[in-house]
Each structure stands twice: as C-alpha cells, then as structure tokens.
C-alpha cells in the first residue's frame, strides 16, 4: 500500500501510493476528478453516478472504483471525456425534476455545483417527465424523489443500530426509486437523520425544520466557487449586414422576472440601444412582428397553446433564439404542476381553492382562452433554441455578455457568481 508507483495522467508523469483509488491519487497530485456518489468515508466505492468516468489504458471506467498501479496510463481531461461527463450530468437533469430556484438544497447541492463547473446551460436530452412523488409521511424526513439521482449513498450509509436499512432502492430500471422505511427511520437519532440529509448530494433527503440554514451568498458553493470562472463554448453565428441589430423579446409561462433582470443591465442598456433596435417586445409594447429579427429572447416555458404559437412565431421570425431563465430552459416553477394531474390543478384553482367563491362550478373556458397543455414544456422541446442563459432570474451581466457575444462575436467567460440556476 505504501509503495510509490508511477502513473501517467494526460501525458504527464505522477507518483502515487499503490492501491489507492484513482480519485484520491489524482487529488494528491492536484488533479481534480469530479464525483457525485463518491465520498471519502465510504468503504466500498459505489460507482453509481458515473461522473468520474476516465480512460484507463484505453478503456473507459470510473476512477472511484479503480486502484492505481505501476505504469497505469490515465486520460482525464480529453474533450471526449469532458463531454461524456457533462452528458451524464445533463442526463441526470433530464431524468429528474430539478427546479433549482425552489430547491432547499440549492447552493449546497453537489450536482448543481458540477453543473456550474462544467458550464451546463441546458440538457441535451429531452425531459423524461417521470412521475415521482414527494413523500412527507415520515415524521422527521421528506423524501423528494423528483430530485433523487439514485447515487445509493443513503442506502449504503444510513443503517439503524441493529443494522437494518432505512433507505432502499425499490423497483428497477427507469422506475427505480429510493424509498424510506418509516419504522426504521424513527430509530435514527437526530444526528443520524441530519447525516442522511448532508450526505445526499442533491436535495432528495430533507429533515423537516432543518433546511434553509444559510442565507444566499453563504451557502457551501457560494463560498467555494467565488473565484471560479465557467467557460462557455458556443459557436459564433455570423451576421452579414451592418445595420442595427433587431431584437424581440417575450415572456411565455414566466413571471417577467427575467425581463426585470434584463433592465438590470443599468446604464449599459444605453450602449445596447446604440446598436440594437427592439421590435416585438413587452418593453416596446409592439404586439406584432413588423420585421425579421436577429435575436429573439424567450422567457418562460410553454404551459398553454398560446405559448406554443408565440414560440413558433418567434422561431419563424428570428434568426437566433435565446432561452433565458430557468423556466424557458427547464420549465421552471410552472413545470412543478407536471407532478399533479391537470384536472386537480384546474379544480384547485377554480373550484375548491380558498379564493374561489362558494358554489363556483365553472372552469373558465372559451375558444379565445388558451388551452392548458398536459405538461409544461421547456422551449427546446418545441423549437430549436440556439443559446441558453440559466438563472432565476439570470444575472444581468450574464445576459449582457451573451448578447455581446452574439452581436459582436466576442469571447466571454462567466464568473461563478453570475452563473447560477437559482
């Protein structure tokens, strides 16, 4: 175990202790391999999240399950492997229902932080729209399956004093979930319950009353990430003419918060107006496209038939479409209704709700009223989206940098503080 051996990582020679796992061995040499399921207390590595996929002697494998040996050749940061790791994170986002703006763990979430590190602005995979439940039954804990990434940490780590499992995988394949055993959960001490919440790399396990401990800015990854910069790689789109750029904006199923943030560019908006002319937009109150636009900025996802029409109109009339804000990218807060049957949503809103008049029995409907869709969809599930600006709302600087990037073909990088999903 204490023998020093030589390994090659991305073409450079390093020394490591024989038999040490590759994540740790690389870390000792100052090389970072991202992980999600791996944590240093765990005895047998889980190898479930696959984020630490690297290439060892030509074969892809996970570094947490690989022990180093003499002469080992490891590739970690090749473009292909970086892309694979990013894809895995994106697949986790597509599989679950992750709404960072409304998540208790936001800012302390390992998966979110990896998303920031890798510059994930949207998922390349279509959303799975899985039917998952939030289990409040247990007295102390909440199991939020929508966020669970099935890393198995809690299943392996959290046991009662008599050695029984508190959490377990149930079902298999795409239907696999982690469930709590209510009876066993009662046997845990408060400290053990907190431990369960803390080892959860996402916001799936929550201890009631013990969430929202730190204010924004002081959360785990707010602090550690201050100096990091996220590189965003996008293809430049060339423009030909030298006239003013024409921009259109709209808010679909959104709250106009992203538009507010757009105005937060402050005085720089004057610079923008030098080169930009707004067409159809709530800012100008122009209701119909009067000419073809270079850029369309879309806030909000698609919740009803009108949203779809507007979005398709934008796609037809604009050369470049930019989805800005979590709702446009992931569906956001409105998409949280996807977990509730549409009928219940409507009845709650118009018939049984606290604010509905007693005796009300009508759900407003008329051919002029847009029809609600079965799900709230992210914009890229309907039309092609060229750029994504995450955030709830997106940071004004981030929006400005993207606009500059598109209009002036300038390279840009986003600081950790500007790149947020919440």
């Amino acid at each position: 175990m204490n023998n020093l051996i030589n390994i090659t990582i991305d073409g450079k020679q390093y020394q490591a202790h024989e038999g040490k796992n590759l994540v740790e061995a690389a870390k000792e040499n100052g090389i970072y391999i991202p992980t999600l399921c791996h944590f240093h207390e765990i005895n047998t590595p889980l190898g479930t999240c696959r984020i630490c996929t690297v290439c060892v002697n030509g074969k892809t494998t996970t570094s947490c399950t690989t022990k180093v040996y003499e002469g080992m050749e490891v590739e970690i940061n090749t473009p292909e492997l970086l892309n694979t790791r990013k894809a895995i994170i994106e697949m986790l986002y597509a599989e679950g229902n992750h709404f960072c703006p409304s998540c208790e763990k936001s800012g302390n979430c390992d998966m979110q932080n990896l998303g920031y590190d890798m510059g994930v602005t949207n998922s390349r995979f279509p959303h799975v729209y899985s039917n998952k439940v939030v289990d409040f039954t247990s007295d102390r804990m909440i199991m939020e399956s929508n966020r669970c990434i099935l890393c198995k940490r809690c299943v392996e780590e959290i046991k009662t004093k008599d050695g029984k499992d508190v959490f377990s995988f149930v079902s298999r394949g795409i239907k696999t979930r982690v469930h709590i055993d209510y009876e066993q959960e009662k046997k845990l001490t408060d400290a053990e319950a907190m431990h369960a919440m803390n080892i959860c790399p996402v916001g799936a396990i929550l201890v009631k009353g013990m969430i929202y401990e730190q204010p924004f800015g002081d959360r785990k990854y707010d602090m550690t990430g201050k100096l990091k910069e996220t590189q965003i790689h996008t293809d430049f789109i060339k423009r030909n003419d030298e006239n003013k750029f024409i921009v259109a904006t709209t808010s679909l199923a959104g709250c106009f918060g992203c538009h507010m943030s757009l105005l937060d560019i402050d005085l720089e908006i004057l610079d923008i107006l030098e080169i930009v002319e707004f067409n159809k937009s709530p800012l100008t109150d122009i209701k119909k496209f009067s000419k073809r636009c270079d850029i369309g900025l879309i806030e909000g996802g698609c919740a009803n038939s009108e949203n779809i029409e507007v979005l398709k109109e934008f796609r037809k009339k604009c050369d470049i479409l930019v989805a800005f804000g979590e709702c446009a990218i992931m569906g956001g807060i409105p998409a949280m209704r996807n977990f509730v049957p549409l009928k219940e949503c409507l009845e709650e809103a118009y018939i049984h709700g606290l604010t509905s008049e007693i005796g009300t029995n009508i759900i407003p409907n008329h051919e002029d009223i847009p029809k609600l869709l079965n799900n709230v969809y992210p914009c890229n599930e309907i039309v092609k989206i060229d750029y994504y600006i995450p955030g709830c709302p997106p940071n004004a600087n981030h929006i400005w940098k993207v606009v500059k990037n598109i209009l002036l073909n300038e390279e840009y990088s986003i600081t950790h503080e500007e790149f947020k999903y919440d």
Partner: protein
Amino acid sequence: MSYPISIYKVILVTTLIFLIMVTKENAIHRSKLLNVLWDIQRKRRFISRDDMKKISKEFNISMIELEGVISFYHFFHLSNAGKYTIYLNCSTISQHKDYQAVKKTFQDELGILIGNVTKDNLFGFFKTSCIGLSDQETSALINGHPFTNLTPEKVQTIISKLRNGHSVESLSNDPKNNIQYTPKDEAKTIFFKTYSKGKGLSKLATLTPDEVIQLITKSKLSGRGGAFFPTGMKWEMCRNNKSDQKYIICNADEGEPGTFKDRVLMNKYPGLLIEGMAIAGYAVGAHEGIIYLRAEYLYLKESIEKTIKEFEESGLLGKNILGINNFDFTVHIQMGAGAYICGEETALIASMEGKRGEPSTKEYFPVEKGFLGKPTVVNNVETLCAVPRILEMGLDNYLSIGTKETPGTKLLSVSGDCKKLGVYEIEWGMKLRDFLSLIEAEDPYMVLFNGFSGECLSKVDFDREISGENLLAEHIQFNFKDPIEYSRKMSGVGLRSGGSIMVFNKSRNLIGILKNITKFFVAESCGICVPCRTGNFLLNKKINKIIFGHADIKDLEQIKEWSTIIKQSSRCGLGKTSTNCLLTALLKFPEEFKKYLTAESNFNHSFNIENAVENYNTIIQEIESTYE
C-alpha cells in the same frame, strides 16, 4: 367466478405452517430469501404486506429492503397475479410470428388488457422478455409451464380448458430440443453425442486438481455465455485463493434474447453439466455447486434434480466421490425470479444472496470474494458441459477440432427467418455464409449476432468466420465511422458468439426490431446507473420518433452520440453492450433509417399540439358535466 372459501383456507394454512417452520430455524440465512418469496408467490399468487411483515422479521431486514428485493424481480408480485399467471413473450422473434394475434386472443378471452389481472383473480396476463423458446414461437409461460407455437385457436382452447378445471400441467407441452446439426465427422462432435454417465468424471481418478486446471487452460476453453473469459485462468485464480469454503456456480440464467442452447443442454444432458460442476469443484477445491436456473426454465428443475439424485445414489456426488479422499461435492438448484441482469455474474451472486440483482463494481472478482464472500467460480452451462467431454476425449483430440484460438465446437441457437430453427453444434471456424445456408436462411438481410447485446451483421460480414481469431478491441470494433473502412478492416476478424443468432430477411422492419431491442433494455436495466437507466429510455423514445416520421438527420447523430456515451459510462456489461446493435445498424443499414427521416427543421415534429391539449379538452367536458 371466485374460489370456494376452502381454497383460501388451504392456502392460508399452508403458508402459516410454512412460516412457522421457517420461524423455528433461528436466524434463517439470507440466501434462502428468494426461495421463501417463491413459495409464497406460488401459493398465494402474490406477496402481501402481512407476508412481508413476517418475512422481514424472520430475515431481520427492514420492510423497505424486502420491498426492494421483491420489486426487483418481475415474477414476484405485490398484488394478486391471478391463479393462472400468463407471461407472453414479447421479444422480436415472437412479434414476427403470431404475437399480435395471440395477444389479442388472450385479451379477448380474458376480457383484460395485457398487464392486468381478471376481476375474479383467476387469470393474470403479462408480457415478458425472451423466455428461451425462440425456435418455437409464439410462446408463453403459464404458472411456469411452457406453451409453444401458440395460435389464436390454441389460446382459446387453453383458456376454456383452464376455466373448466384442467390442470396447467396437462395442457402445457414440453419444448422440443430441435437439435438440427452436429459436425459431419462424428469424431468432431463434442456436446451432442452419446453420453454415458460418469465417463468424464471418472478421469479424475488419475488427475490431480492442478493437472485438471492445466488441461482446461491448454484447451483454451473460455466462457461460453458470451464473455469468453479463459476458464482455466478463472479456476486457477479461485484455486489460489485459500478459503474454508468455495463455490461452483453454474450460470443457467440464459437470458440473452434468442439464446436457448443451454435449455437444450440441460434438458438433454443434465448429467454432463453436473459432471462439469463436480470436476470444477475438484479442480478449485470447492465442495458445493449451485445451479442458478432462470425462472423461465422452472420446468427443467425437476428433471435436473432427478439427475442430481441419481448421481448421489451412484456415488458420483456426495462424499469421497470415486473413492478420492476429500472429493466431496453436492449440487443444488437456486431458482431466479425474472431479471436479465442476473446473468451478469456479480448480479447473479447478489441475487443468490437474497438481494436485489445489482452488479457489483468488481472491487473483488467472484474468484476472490464471491457467493457469501467466499471464492466462487461462475461458469456458463455450455462451458461446464464441455469440461467432462474434454477429459473424456483427451486434450489432443479436442485441440484438433476448431481453430487455434477457439478449439472445439460451439452451440448456436438459431431463430428468425430460416427454415431449420433450433440448436446447431458447429466446429469453430465455419464461415457465416456457409452457416446461413446450413440453416436455410431465406434471403438473409440482417443477422442479429449474439443477441440484443450483440451486433447487427449485414452482407459485408457474411464472409467472416465464426471463431475467436484476430479479434479487435471492442472500442475499435464499435467505433467505425465509415462502412467501407469497416468492411476492409473487419473482413478477417472472427465472429464470436455466446450462442444467439437471429436472422431477418428484407421483409422485416429493421427499425421495429431496434425498437424492440431498446425496449428490452429499458425493461431489464437494473436502474443503478443513469446512462443505462435513462439513456436507453431516451433512445427508445428516439426510435419511436423515427418510426413516427418526426426525426431528421440530427436525431441520427444524437442517437450515435448518446449510444457511445452509454457504452462508455455504464456501470456493467448490460449498459456497455446495450447500444451495440443500434450503433452497428446505423453503420451498416443507414438507408433503413433514412427512409423515415424528414427534412431538417427548427421545429420539433414530435410535439403535437392536438395531443398536448387533448387532456385539457376532456377535463373541461368532464367538469362541465359533473358540476352542471
């Protein structure tokens, strides 16, 4: 119709007696869990909350852990699965036969849709992945009994007879062996020839364990389940691990769609298998052998057990076998419960230990820490059956058959569009083209080689030979971008198969076959890692998008990219091989995809506004009528 009360009573009493018996043995071993669950499933037709409470207490595990185990296996049910539980095979080969008509007849006769149970709990009707009867499709299992070559008429008779009180057993039919071919030169036949009990095993009288291992190593015998790990090396590693207890496990979880050669071997030559296990036990120093038999082959259990008994009675199993001191060996059967992944050796071991059949990270190989933490050899049925034959015929004779890297013969299960369906024993080295004419394939267009985790072969591959010669590393083999380069580089490369060969002619819809394949992996992924769990689900959606004519060229590029990502990053062999067929089909049959494609567009054609608002329209109508 409902059962008379007395039947309920009998069921309850037997289960109670059973549980009381179980209780008496203190701290039952976890590895008995699957058997207990099977007993209750068989008697009660499901595992109730009350049963679960008792079981979790007896096994000293939490309810949720137990539920995790039960819900992992698709033959275990948490609600009543019917007195007669029907599983209809939904795999591609079945689909190409009478699946649709048979399914419809079942549904009409029972008055339920597939996936449901009749109101009187008499019949449950479910679909299942390939049940190892591809040469006699359409096939189904009813309470574990096989029904082959089903037609709508047969289904009607079966259902009405069951309703009239006939036993399932009396209606089921024993699957045929369909052994179609053995090498012309009888001296070159290894498996399908006269078997005389104990002939191979008796050779141990003159061989030391080390000599046996050397012999097997020299024979270049390798894992016939499809992984082709050298058997001799595996045994030697196990032998070198000192332990008070070691195990020989026979992997009889023949789940790869289109494979059924192990079924035929176990049906016709169970003795060969038992001898193989005993020899393996002798070689590595193990005294216990376990056959992990897939639940779909329940009907083979009795005859194998009978053979085991005969072996025991004639002193070929038990203590001091053949008078050799300390050569003690027993064999028993462990039933699986419906999970393709349990064919993966570490998942198989987890399943035998009464856990969810999830593969391990291979921190330790089974030969180091396997079943119950003890050194364990896991070998395929065919591998083990070859062992006594090698001893019997001698190394030199064995090596004279087949090719240099793969001596001997190979069993291949043949299904699909050919005249002579069944099992073939061929000498390694036969050209695929010759094999296709041997099976009388009718105008073969695509050959699905090695099952759903194998690859699609087109006519450019037909001149390759079936052997393990000149193999390429997998990441090269599945990474060709250009079909011309592929055919140039692969022409001399051997084709090595675990045993499944499905042949399709031009009339078959290739995309439909791929849809069936992706669906299979969605159903069989264990769910532990995201690339396999969700990646395959998304690929299945993509294939549907193609079929609906909503896909464009970008979708094909995405399929390629995603398939490669799944291949690179999945946790076990299931995920890593799940996209092989898709990748090879894209390379070799691009025109099959292209004919479905639409022009590239900025709009996602698979989003349909009418469908998306349909729900809303119905709700508005419903609510208006409810509250009027």
